[in-house]
């Protein structure tokens, strides 16, 4: 007995929009800047993101050449914190997706290639994971292990495993039905090599597409957890926690909310746009 025919997927997977080319170029350029900020934050902002200097707090953007995006409630440079906060935010997105992809691949193969009993057990376990909303699962993991990017990452990764494993399992079924596996096993080829040569290459494209969009979702969920006070630990800069801190001062200086909010949204948007482009290519559709 299989579960429902529908395959829940993370937000964004159905977006089949056809964005004009410039959008894709802009998205790629923005992500390039983000990537540079993640690897060498010093290039974009020379100041120490933790330094609490003599400068006053709540400086507006562009008011001072020393602080292009102004200062926060403790007089720290917002641009520097934003730049230095890039890596933890990206690690959240990439790490969670990495866990989901690897976990999903292992469980998907186990279900797809294992015995009927194995498949049933794996699918029921995945059902249990799916039955608990992603954010509740993350809250429980954090309640148990404590706050911090690594725990939030683990939680979001585990919660999204089922989407990938279902996809991988479906692919192995396709491969199986096509007769490769029977033929290959009949020829005495080891199962590991069947997986390596036939199943994975077939599964990789859709998984990659799903993963790209998943990175965007994971960044957004990570920021949500930080917003609830359950993500990155202070005073380490991270987009979501910058935003959460800024909300406290929204009536004093709303730029402290607006700046990280715009950056988070643009990043997720860019990743989604690229993911969709990738998807169109994978499906062989061209932009009309």
């Amino acid at each position: 007995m299989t579960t429902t025919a529908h395959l829940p997927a993370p937000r964004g997977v159905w977006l089949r929009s056809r964005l004009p080319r410039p959008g894709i170029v802009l998205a790629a350029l923005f992500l390039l800047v983000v990537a540079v900020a993640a690897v060498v934050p010093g290039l974009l902002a020379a100041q120490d993101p933790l330094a609490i200097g003599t400068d006053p707090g709540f400086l507006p953007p562009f008011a001072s050449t020393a602080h292009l995006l102004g200062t926060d409630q403790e007089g720290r440079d917002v641009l520097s914190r934003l730049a230095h906060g890039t890596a933890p935010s990206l690690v959240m997105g990439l790490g969670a997706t990495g866990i989901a992809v690897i976990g999903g691949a292992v469980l998907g193969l186990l279900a797809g290639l294992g015995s009927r009993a194995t498949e049933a057990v794996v699918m029921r376990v995945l059902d249990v994971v799916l039955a608990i909303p992603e954010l509740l699962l993350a809250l429980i993991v954090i309640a148990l292990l404590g706050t911090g990017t690594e725990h939030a990452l683990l939680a979001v990764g585990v919660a999204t495993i089922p989407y990938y494993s279902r996809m991988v399992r479906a692919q192995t079924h396709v491969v199986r039905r096509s007769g490769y596996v029977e033929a290959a096993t009949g020829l005495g080829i080891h199962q590991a090599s069947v997986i390596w040569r036939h199943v994975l290459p077939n599964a990789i494209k859709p998984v990659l597409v799903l993963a790209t969009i998943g990175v965007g979702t994971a960044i957004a969920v990570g920021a949500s957890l930080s917003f609830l006070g359950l993500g990155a630990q202070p005073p380490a800069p991270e987009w979501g926690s910058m935003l959460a801190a800024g909300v406290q001062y929204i009536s004093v200086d709303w730029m402290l909310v607006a700046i990280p909010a715009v950056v988070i949204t643009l990043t997720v948007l860019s990743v989604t746009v690229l993911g969709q482009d990738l998807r169109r290519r994978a499906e062989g559709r061209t932009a009309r």
Partner: protein
Amino acid sequence: MRAKLLAERIGWRMIAGVGVLWGAATAAFFTLHGTAGDAALSTVAGQGADPTQAVLDQVRRDYGLDLPLWRQYVDYLGQLLHGDLGESYQQRLPVAQAIEAQLGQTVQLAAGAIVIALVLAVGVGVLTAKRRRWVRATTTGVELLLASTPTFVIGLVLLIVFSIGLHLFPVSGQDGLRSLVLPTFTLALPVTAILSQVLRSELEDVLEQPFILTARARGMRDVAVRFRHALRHAAIQLVTMSGYIIGGLLGGTVITESLFNRQGIGQLMLVATTNKDIPLVVGVVIFCALVYVVVNLVVDILYTVIDPRVVTR
């Protein structure tokens, strides 16, 4: 024959559903009990409290926290079989009652969000499918932006603009419809974006079908064609997505309720998990799993109604 198959199928699904509930309860029970932190201490000795040892000992005895873990688990399962979810450590109420007390508000919010999302998505989807390039580009752009914006950012923008800026709606609370507007839209907008995209995509496929051409040839007006014929066929995709949407809404309420200071299941989740109120967390997990199981069951039955071939699959 078909009815028998259907009944059998539903029967199996219900057994699988009970399995999911048991699995979710067991996993939550052991992970919560098995990890760092003394639940009895956190129940009585939070910040600002100075309880006596006698109180602590009493709480350990009351909740069986002094028993070995397997014993606690067996006792809990026994309770569950009698439909008893236990007592919340913090609220000292039966867990079922604690959930029930919050349920109404969340249902109100989620139902409102679903209605808004459906109306907006159907309207936008139907009216923009197969339209001029700039119309589609603009709507897709907006949809993409909304779908990519984290829920709390949408909520904050609505809060700043409509409440703090324009004073159109109260910033918080739950009295009356006005206080429901901003949280409902916060929850609905991302869902709307996804739904309208899916719908348009489906519609564009349907609008190329021969029967649409026939309808148009009969002289039917464009809007009527879109709403009467095309929409009905595209609706199947919406049913498919309902499980995903409801799951997303349940998660989204945590953010929305916390941002707009509303009571509800989301707040309950947050409070229960941060206080390590084990029976309450396990209760909420079981509740969410139940929603998931029931929604999937209903979707499954709907499928068989819409498309009889599914049963024999």
